[in-house]
């Protein structure tokens, strides 16, 4: 029976090609507009590390208070050296790391080649296991390298390709700013987006890091952060690197891995106690003010999803609604025009339910056609996103099976919803009245 309804629907749609085309186009465009912006939205608001985002926490400690005219009650979004080192020494989490972006120059072994600039992080060995960094060769440096301030380095596959032609370079050396570093590992492609572990620098969407070196070694070499540095006090950075490390300037990103709710609670009370200690010691002149956010809470707090993406998603949904209202009107026109036909079918014994099924089948066909057109337009739209949005964001938006399925589903469901009222009207047609007027 359903196949017969589809056949009837096809014949009816062919009878008014203009009206049918209009409906298909309306649905196609509506679906494509909302799906294209959804693809962008999904790319920028997704969970960058789904299996661990609930275990990775970002502690914040208020080391500024309301001094020097500061009014915010939120602690700074990065940490100063004093607090970061105190937390590292306390070692209260299962795993912990503190890092800052670096941008040293790499001096090639071949003295005729030009130096190149590389970007990456000074961090601790736990970084790699906490953030699930995959390795192609070797692995993270051992924790003893952190303690011994070793000159060891992890490089990414792309840099390894450029320097060593992609061969296993573990144990070889590279020269950064005139110092030799032994390669401990080569990471495979790794660039979770948004870049949750360092959203403060570069807004959360950046190119992949090329090198990682031990934090303790970077501090020995007085490396400056390649990212943001904020100072609240009048002293600023101070006059020397030692002053800088003692200052209240914040520039470090701290992460702790806390696998259970109990671990989170005990870490929170540790932070509270730490801040209270600082207050008692006279370093903080205010009550403990700490935060402990997991990955998704942190991304949300840092407003990583650009507001314009949210606004455009919203407007595209509005666009889809207008297209649906449009489709309701057109379907109503189309179905009511066939009142005589419905009257005859009803008089010949078709039940209201059967009329309902017939017209919904017809509407679903419009939905399928609209979905296919919408799919085509979505593909074009996602291509067009590259022209419109920043390339770092546009690169993330792509058509995959999930998006294809969702596009078709939205088109069909939306059309069937739009058809509910016109179909109901069609099923209410009075057979006697239709037969009489003819």
């Amino acid at each position: 029976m359903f196949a017969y309804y589809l056949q009837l629907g096809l014949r009816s749609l062919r009878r008014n090609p203009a009206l049918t085309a209009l409906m298909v186009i309306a649905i196609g465009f509506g679906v494509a507009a909302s799906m294209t912006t959804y693809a962008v939205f999904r790319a920028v608001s997704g969970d960058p590390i789904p299996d661990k985002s609930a275990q990775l926490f970002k502690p914040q400690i208020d080391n500024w208070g309301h001094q020097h005219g500061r009014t915010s009650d939120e602690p700074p979004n990065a940490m100063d050296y004093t607090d970061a080192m105190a937390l590292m020494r306390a070692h209260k989490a299962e795993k912990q790391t503190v890092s800052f972006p670096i941008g040293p120059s790499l001096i090639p072994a071949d003295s005729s080649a030009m130096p190149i600039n590389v970007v990456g992080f000074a961090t601790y060995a736990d970084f790699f296991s906490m953030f699930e960094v995959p390795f192609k060769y070797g692995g993270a440096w051992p924790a003893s390298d952190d303690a011994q301030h070793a000159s060891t380095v992890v490089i990414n596959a792309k840099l390894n390709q450029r320097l060593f032609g992609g061969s296993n370079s573990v144990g070889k050396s590279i020269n950064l700013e005139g110092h030799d570093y032994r390669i401990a590992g080569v990471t495979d492609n790794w660039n979770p987006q948004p870049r949750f572990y360092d959203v403060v620098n570069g807004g959360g969407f950046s190119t992949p890091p090329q090198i990682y070196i031990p934090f303790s070694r970077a501090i020995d070499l007085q490396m400056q952060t390649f990212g943001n540095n904020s100072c609240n006090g009048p002293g600023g950075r101070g006059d020397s690197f030692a002053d800088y490390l003692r200052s209240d300037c914040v520039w470090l990103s701290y992460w702790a891995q806390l696998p259970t709710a109990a671990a989170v609670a005990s870490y929170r009370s540790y932070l509270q106690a730490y801040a209270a200690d600082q207050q008692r010691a006279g370093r903080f002149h205010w009550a403990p003010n700490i935060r402990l956010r997991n990955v998704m809470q942190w991304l949300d707090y840092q407003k990583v999803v650009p507001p314009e993406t949210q606004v455009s998603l919203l407007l595209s949904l509005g666009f889809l609604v207008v297209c649906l209202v449009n489709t309701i009107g057109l379907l109503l026109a189309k179905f009511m025009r066939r009142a005589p036909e419905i009257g005859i079918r009803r008089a010949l014994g078709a039940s209201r339910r059967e009329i309902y099924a017939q017209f919904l089948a017809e509407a679903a066909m419009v939905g399928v056609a609209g979905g296919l057109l919408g799919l085509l337009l979505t593909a074009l739209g996602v291509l067009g996103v590259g022209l419109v949005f920043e390339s770092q964001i546009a690169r993330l938006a792509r058509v995959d099976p999930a998006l294809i399925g969702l596009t078709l589903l939205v088109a069909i469901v939306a059309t069937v919803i739009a058809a509910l009222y016109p179909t109901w009207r069609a099923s209410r047609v009075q057979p006697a009245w239709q037969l009489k007027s003819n």
Partner: protein
Amino acid sequence: MQISPILSALRHHKAGTALIAMQIALTLAIVCNTLFIIQQRVAHLSRPSGIDEAHLLRIQNQWVGQHGDYAPLLAADLATLRHVPGVVDAYATNSVPLSGGGWSTGLGLKPSQNGPTAMTAIYFADDHTLPTLGVKLVAGRNFRADEISDMPALSKPTPPFVIITRALASKLYPHGDALGKSVYVAPDKPSTIIGVVRRLQAPWTGNFAASFSDNSTLVPFRLITNGTNFVLRVRTGQMGNVMRTAPKALYAANRMRVIPDDDGVMPFSAIRAKAYASDRGMAILMAVICVMLLAITAAGIVGLTSFWVGQRRKQIGVRRALGATRGDILSYFLTENLLIGMGGVLLGIALAIGLNLWMVTRFEMQHLSLWYVLAGAVALLLLGQGAVFAPALRASRVPPVEATRSV
């Protein structure tokens, strides 16, 4: 034209009427807000930076392998750059307008003031800065060469004197008498304002600096660190040449440096395009959505009116037979659409304002100007009239003889 027969006819098509009105209302609400967002973006991205962008080029440079004293390297590189053919002038600085990264600080009027009087961007400058950027002094004087001193990367800036923008001057001294007065860049030592420039934008274009985007302070320092930005003023028509020859000249003078491949050498036109890429993208996306929405709405009106015309051929025939002219039929459908349109527009105005108020609270947007709503309303009424014209014309061509035919 009699309105009451139209209204009574519409009463028989409640659903269709309501749907057209609703579509017009939603379209109006979305289009008004979209146009408003476009206008805000365009206003944002066309804000002047105050510098002569067409003639300016930035080179990012990092010296490698030499530790300690960068002052002679800086002086040598500047001398090299100023001798490149096509270069008018050059200076070195920490940051430039539109670059997105730089140094901000609070300024006070009293020593160790609690809370700043104004926020400002800090630009490191020398006697070549104003002529290179093409920034005009409105009061006071430029720095002299002998007034520029070296500042290592980590020290506190305590400039003896500064040049500030007019926007900042009027924030600090609202009576327009900033020249010669003091301002505290460092908390304990005052700096004398020796010059006021017309306009110089801060490096940031995002929300971070929205409240102080035109507040800039030039300090008479050379930043002595391993990385610097060279800003070059280039003769008209020489930009392409200088972009090739200037880095070559730098490498020829001293090979131990890095000039990044992708954005190391950038004319200000490219820096501007990069700074406002997302604003421009948003405006284009919104404009596309707007146009498609209007097209879909117009198509919907054409579709539904065509259906009504087809349905009423007999009535139209009767009216024509009873003496109605073609003009009467045409104006009947136009008036009908106008009535529906006005209903939709009234609802749409309420929706547009409601949507805007919600977005104001949710996305910190600004309040919609009523002119947008009114302009949008008129535009949609005209769109409706345009869309209905073709079906109405077809209706007016229905011959009176239709009255005698059975359906």
